[in-house]
């Protein structure tokens, strides 16, 4: 997913360039989220194996991403820009 790395770089560049304009630019990096497309793309056993490696071994759902996006869009996130928040159940540490 090289294109995703490009988006992270683009977000940081835009965050620096347009922060003074009051524009915050952030990324949300989902882990293996249970969507129909993701389920169709890999065997169920492989899906479960990834879930078991998460620090929080619950199934990740689209709402996990949406809740984080809504937070980043809200006034509560006024101090956040140029960051990547991983909604991955802690897979990033493993």
């Amino acid at each position, binding site marked *: 997913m090289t294109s995703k790395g490009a988006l992270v770089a683009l977000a940081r560049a835009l965050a620096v360039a347009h922060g003074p304009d009051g524009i915050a630019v952030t990324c949300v990096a989902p882990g293996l989220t249970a969507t129909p497309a993701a389920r169709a793309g890999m065997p169920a056993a492989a899906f479960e194996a990834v879930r078991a490696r998460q620090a929080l071994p619950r199934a990740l759902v689209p709402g996990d*991403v*949406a809740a984080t996006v809504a937070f980043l869009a809200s006034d509560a996130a006024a101090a956040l820009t140029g960051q990547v928040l991983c909604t991955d159940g802690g897979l990033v540490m493993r």
Partner: protein
Amino acid sequence: MTRPVRRVAVVTGGAGAIGGSVAATLTAADHEVVIMDRTGDVPVDLGDEGQVRAAAQRVLDQSGRCDVLVHAAAAFDRADLARLDLAVWRRVQAVNVESALLLARAFVPGMAARGFGRIIFVVSDTVWPRPQRTCCRT
């Protein structure tokens, strides 16, 4: 929370599972949500520069502004170096990266003029997380 002007949120990929969930959540949080996808409020092929420009203009014509841009659309393909089809690579870059750039370029001037804007890219932690790992382990 009510605001003087309801914020307009454009969600690419809003016809998909994650984009759809984002659209519903932002609607519940008092945003006017415009779904930009192959199907949706503003139908568009995000891999086509002309269509992306026209779609952005349509949002500005119809809703007058974009305060929040969420890019959740993604083309997906994987191939090893030897089998990589450059046309497929370019298509993925166009949908995933260039459309985000074009939409940001269309909406940032208005955001800057109003002094408020949020741009949020939905990416993936499947391949990129080394810096995060370093940070989490120190």
